[in-house]
């Protein structure tokens, strides 16, 4: 049974078609990547799942419920937490306040505090700088904060848009390791990435997205995959 299912969704802005007839799915506990070049509609797809933009046609299902027309808050309450492109941490809030805001949907104060402690255990750097303005953190630290903030809502599924963007290679590796670890602990993951090689290695399954949202392949991920070959194919797909 699929946890998340996009069924033939299309997204248009005015006359511009961003995504056309996209169908993908993520099963419970799965780590799935959606790779593709800039401008193929990956971010639009993320926004549609998160309830920020409405698909012009098609439907999105999560836990067997149609979430196509739900608003962002309700989708989050259903269990999909978003780590958006560019991180979007609240720079003028402290690190701790960013985490507190992440738990907005839960009214259980003691559970939130416990959750906060466990985030600080998992991300020591966030504990160390907890009362510092989040804008002062380094890029890698901000990415950790963005992920930790998403985890504060205890989601079933993490939806990440280009978490590796703008990070040093070593830090990127740490982010992917973290995602794998979270996945092993039971969080389903849908990762949207331009960084195809590492995304494929980290994930159970991956999709390649082409201009207009057509899916070219659906294949198994993991470190046995011949990444060089896929990247070559994938580059071909990317040319418009």
């Amino acid at each position, binding site marked *: 049974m699929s946890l998340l299912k996009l069924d033939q969704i299309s997204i248009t802005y005015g006359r511009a078609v961003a995504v056309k007839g996209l169908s993908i799915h993520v099963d419970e506990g799965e780590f799935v990547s959606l790779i593709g070049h800039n401008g193929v509609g990956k971010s639009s797809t993320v926004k549609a799942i998160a309830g*920020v933009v409405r698909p012009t046609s098609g439907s999105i299902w999560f836990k067997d419920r149609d979430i196509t027309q739900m608003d962002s808050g309700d989708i989050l309450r259903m269990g999909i937490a978003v780590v958006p492109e560019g991180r*979007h941490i*609240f720079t*003028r809030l402290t690190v701790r*306040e960013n985490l*507190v805001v992440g738990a907005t949907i839960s009214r259980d104060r003691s559970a939130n505090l416990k959750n906060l402690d466990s985030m600080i255990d998992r991300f020591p750097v966030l504990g160390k700088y907890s009362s510092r303005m989040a804008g002062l953190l380094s890029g890698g630290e901000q990415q950790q904060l963005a992920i930790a903030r998403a985890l504060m809502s205890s989601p079933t599924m993490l939806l990440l848009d280009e978490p590796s963007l703008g990070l040093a290679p070593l830090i990127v590796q740490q982010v992917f390791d973290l995602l794998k670890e979270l996945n092993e602990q039971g969080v389903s993951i849908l990762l949207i990435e331009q960084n195809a090689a590492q995304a494929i290695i980290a994930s159970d399954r991956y999709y390649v997205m082409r201009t207009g949202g057509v899916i070219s392949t659906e294949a198994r991920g993991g470190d046995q995959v011949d990444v060089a070959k896929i990247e070559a194919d994938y580059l071909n797909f990317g040319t418009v």
Partner: protein
Amino acid sequence: MYLQYVVDAIGTGSLYALMTLGLALVFSVMGLMNFAYGQLVMIGGFSIIMLRQQPWWAIILGTILVVVIASLLMERLAFRPVRAATAMTMLITSFALAQFLQQAARVAFGANPRPLEQFSELSVQYVVGDLFISRQTIITVVVAISIMLALTLLLKKTNIGIQLRASTEDVDMARLVGIKSNRVIASAFVISGVIAAIVSMLFFATRTNVSWSSGESIVLIAFVGAVIGGLGSMVGAALGGFLMGFAYTLLNALLPLELRVFADAFLYTIVIVVLLIRPSGLIAAKGARV
């Protein structure tokens, strides 16, 4: 002698700082420059007139209640429907609302200013050395500082305060973490309303009448204060408003008698100079938009 002017200027500055804060708070949360804010102060003025015979605590509570309800109604009926529209649409909505409320007050209370019986308790003067300090000035300064401290605590320590600040910075991300913008914006209007009510009490305590046009000058001062302070920054707003009041009082006191009628012209010349030097205000907030 000069010190006396400074004392008076601090009193006026504190009042203007509060006025500016109420306007700047809503601006920073939803990018709306609410020109009908002055009419909230006017509504406060009329409610003081209606409640004038009541005990002092009833005047205070009643005025706060009336103005907060007016502020919430503004948000719900006028601004919520245009929230997704451009900043320009919201701005025009607020002008229209300001005009509507002024004319409504004119119909309801008449074109002539309504006399306001003075609060003689407030004009008591204390003598400190060579200085005369009125009870009114002391109350204004104490209330302004208390409100600013309370607002700071609210924004830093409460969940709704943290949500408010998060929405101020990045409203789209705030929605993605489940912050309900209706709730956050409504609470900004409640706070703005409480501040407008308190401003109206401090302001009209020194006036002899309330008129349908009483709000006009107030919103202009608050608007300019917010702009020189740096739009979107609370500290900047308080500072900008304070400096406006401070400069205005000093200009009125220190300009040669024949130039005093031009005090406003001098004040706004200073404002223009400040903005030429610092176009985004004294304390610029990141990503602020008009």
